[in-house]
């Protein structure tokens, strides 16, 4: 019984991701179905790659009959932001074994955001909660990819704007983090870096640039004693 309550807690935590991932995965499925391949390759991509922006890029690369090496480099660079997530999850994902490496594999933007902001429910082993959240999120994504590819453009429900759920999720998690924060400088450093990157690098390249600048400033600030570490 305890296990059911734990899964219910993980389900509640991941509900916003359900509303964001299904339409976003379906959008990938729609685009993928235009390539003319069997529909099941779309959910297979969600299962094996599980990275939203890289999968959208992949549709373009498949359509252009891009080379494998070119694809590998482009996908690695696009996903390089994940390196920053790993740096701050080392302590939260201890141990070894398949469970740890599945958690690492499933570390998307949304999963990282949820797991760094949501306290592990009482009487729950942290790794069980992390696994449930990670696996549920991937289920939503794979279902979305499959539904989108199966329905193609036959879908008659107007889901315009539903993907705002992910923007709202990040906003809510940011507010939760600010409420429980002991120091404000990481938010301030990131806000300035983010706006500057948006302005200087443009919307498509801001994410990696802002993360790199924030990391550098946070490291330099600590070293030079700008703020107590």
């Amino acid at each position, binding site marked *: 019984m305890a296990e059911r309550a734990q899964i219910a807690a993980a389900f509640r935590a991941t509900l916003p991701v359900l509303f964001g991932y299904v339409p976003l995965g379906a959008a990938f499925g729609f685009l993928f179905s235009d390539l003319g391949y069997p529909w099941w390759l779309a959910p297979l991509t969600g299962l094996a790659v599980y990275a939203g922006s890289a999968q959208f890029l992949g549709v373009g690369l498949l359509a252009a009959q891009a080379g494998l090496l070119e694809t590998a480099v482009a996908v690695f660079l696009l996903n390089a932001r994940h390196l920053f997530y790993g740096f701050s999850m080392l302590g939260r994902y201890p141990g070894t074994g398949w469970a740890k490496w599945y958690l690492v594999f499933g570390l998307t933007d949304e999963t990282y955001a949820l797991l*760094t902001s949501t306290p592990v429910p009482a009487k729950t082993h942290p790794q069980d909660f992390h696994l449930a959240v990670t696996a549920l999120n991937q289920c939503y994504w794979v279902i979305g990819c499959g539904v989108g590819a199966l329905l193609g453009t036959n879908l008659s429900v107007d889901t*315009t704007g539903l993907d705002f759920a992910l923007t709202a999720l990040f906003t809510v998690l940011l*507010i939760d983090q600010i409420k429980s924060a002991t120091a404000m400088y990481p938010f301030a450093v990131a806000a300035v870096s983010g706006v500057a990157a948006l302005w200087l690098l443009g919307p498509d390249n801001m994410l990696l640039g802002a993360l790199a600048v924030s990391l550098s400033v*946070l490291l330099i600030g600590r070293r030079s004693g700008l703020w107590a570490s």
Partner: protein
Amino acid sequence: MGELIYPLAMIGVMAVATFPTRALPFLLLRGRENHPLLVYLARVLPAAVMTILVLYAVRGIELGQAPHGLPELLALGVTAGLHVWRGNTLLSIGVGTGLYMAVLQSGVAG
């Protein structure tokens, strides 16, 4: 089957190229979780990343042309306000997203 080789190879390559972006920190820094620098990063990076993800999520807003990002700003304001007031994650996200969908689909935002 022949026509499946290329897409399957592409999917495989994409998977193989994505996993290291998530796994490299864990592989390179194994056993150093308690290094002061990594403890520091574990404390400050989530706050920085979350701030940047919010900015990234609204990156596409065109402030310069109609509707000047008003649907996004309205929905974000309602989401944030509701969350500061009630602190109920699902309520904040549900109302904010519902409002955003209503504004977009009603066409009032042009």
